[in-house]
């Protein structure tokens, strides 16, 4: 089973990429689970067409079931099946401004592991909230739930900075990076910039998703474009990315840049002659 985590700056398109990859893999016949690790609990909506009940909302009930040996069946009742058979779980978390979301991720994933929720799968995808803001958000990597990480970034400086920062966290944890995905915002030389960063940290640009209105349009109706416009060019790009990840064997512990080196990298791209 492939255990994949998708990280990146907040709002960069992690959930969009995660749901589309899950949809593409499931459509090709693989058994796939998508685990939304965001308190907003909105990772799986495009696969289900609605919001599902977060696991943490029923945590006590699941723990009680686990104590009496019935955790698997209780958890199965919580796992909804979406487009092409993708099994969807939202971990959920506290209301904004209270509680500890990172701790919630840790507890929920451990409960899922104990309940054999990851059995009989070909791929499990963890869609992680934002940057690695605290130890809780590193849990999927730290405890080995995810064995390969893909970082989503655009060519904007703040997104590149976050991507490099995630590499720092990964190096501390000795977690392995599968590659960097460019989710383009339409900037000049954007792919080149992301690719330069990917090489600088010792990895590769594993795929590029050009800016397109097809993604937000499809999201409005609670679907992925794999479902709504499967013959579109954008769907083709997603399928190619999903295949590249499946074929990928280049997993490395990244070597993040220091801040000065990252600034130099950005400046060099500006000086490359491309008109901004």
């Amino acid at each position, binding site marked *: 089973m492939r255990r994949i985590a998708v990280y990146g700056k907040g709002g960069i398109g992690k959930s969009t990429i995660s749901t589309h990859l899950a949809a593409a893999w499931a459509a090709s016949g693989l058994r796939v689970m998508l685990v939304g690790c965001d308190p907003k609990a909105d990772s799986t909506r495009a696969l289900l067409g609605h919001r599902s009940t977060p696991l943490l909302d029923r945590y006590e009930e699941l723990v009680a079931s686990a104590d009496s040996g019935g955790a698997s069946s209780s958890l199965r009742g919580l796992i909804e099946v979406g487009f092409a058979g993708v099994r969807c779980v939202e971990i959920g*978390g506290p*209301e904004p401004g*209270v*509680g*500890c979301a990172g701790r*919630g991720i840790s*507890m929920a994933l451990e409960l899922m592991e104990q309940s054999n929720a990851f059995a009989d799968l070909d791929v499990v995808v963890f869609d992680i909230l934002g940057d690695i803001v605290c130890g809780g958000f590193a849990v999927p990597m730290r405890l080995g739930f995810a064995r390969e990480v893909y970082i989503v970034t655009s060519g904007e400086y703040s997104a590149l900075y976050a991507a490099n920062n995630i590499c720092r966290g990964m190096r501390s944890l000795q977690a392995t990076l599968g590659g960097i995905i460019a989710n383009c915002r339409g900037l000049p030389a954007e792919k080149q910039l992301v690719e330069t960063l990917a090489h600088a940290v010792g990895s590769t640009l594993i795929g590029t998703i050009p800016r397109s209105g097809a993604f937000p349009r499809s999201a409005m109706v609670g679907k992925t474009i794999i479902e709504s416009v499967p013959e579109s060019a954008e769907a083709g790009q997603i399928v190619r990315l999903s295949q590249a990840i499946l074929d990928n064997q280049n997993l490395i512990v990244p070597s993040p840049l220091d801040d000065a080196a990252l600034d130099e990298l950005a400046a060099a791209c500006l000086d490359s002659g491309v008109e901004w």
Partner: protein
Amino acid sequence: MREVTARVEPLLSCSLCGAIRATAGVKGAVPMVHGPMSCASGHRGIPLQGNAEPLVPPTALTDIDIVRGTSKYLQDAVRKLYQVRSPPLTVVILTCATSLISEDYQRIVRDLTQELHSPVILVDGSAIAGDEIDGYRRFVRALTQTVVPPASAEDAPAGGLTLRGLAGTDFGISAELPILTEMVRDSLGLEVRGSLFLQFDLQKDMPLLSLPGIPVGWLWTEAEVWQPAPYGAEGTRRWLSGIAEAMGSQPELNARSGWVEAQEALSSWRTKLQGMRVAIEALSWWAVGLGLFLQKELGCQVLLSTDRYGLEYQHRYGEFADTTLVDVGNFELLTYLDDFQPSFVFGSSFVKSGPWQWIPFHQPIWHETTESPGWMGPAGAVRLATILAQGEALYA
């Protein structure tokens, strides 16, 4: 001087414990621990050290409560406590878990204060935010800044002062406080009107807040010049002079205080006690005061196991201890005592057993132990020197 700052087994506990000790100094106040069960249950014994009811209710949070947010649990628990006990003061003490997730507790306690028409204050008691001393200080700050309205000077009893920083849970306080009070009255002509926060009554004692306050005990380092506890003849003179200076007067060490007799008695014991090894385990106000007496007035060699201010005092005002251990406690301390080979050890029950005479001096002390006879002031100094010189076993 040998300085050791290892912390394998620290002398001090977390900030929470200091806050519980301080709360025990306000009549009827209840410390509510906002966090997991054992943060409260592990410390229920602290109020007992001050003969206060061992009531330390927790919000008893679990893993999932921490994840979802704890505000509602706190609100419900305080309301329930008020329904059942109606305490005159509720002290919400944060633990590591609730301090880390940083919800808007200040707003919650403010709202509860208005809703219940009874003060609810907040103290960060997490171990990562500080130790017992920090917890005690935070309590005093929270109470004086957020709840207690400033009393007007006209309400203050004339010619008095207060001692700030003793706790009912301090070992021997019931014997030492009368000694302190009498010394201040006899030597300075001032009346100790109360000791904040030692049996502080929120209804009656508010005017005391307008009196000049002399920092002692837990708050002794808040004075401009740090005056350690008045042990010994010279130590007592130094302490009284410090108060006099703070109050703008001169101390008169009159005959009634037993000053002259004490000096004579101590000088006769000095020859016998010269070079005797004595170890002290206590918070710095007490440890430094006693250590200075033993070393400067009796010629003993002293090992101090104390908090950070015990070391800082010596850096500021001069070294006197052979060895100063900072925040070293329990079994780790015993290994240092074995090396030092003291004849007497002043401290908690942790250091009771060993090839030395033990004198109870610092909490925790097992409940069956006799209360201290009082070692402060000239008379106490003579009592103490006599015991050391005669090698008496006070408590077998």
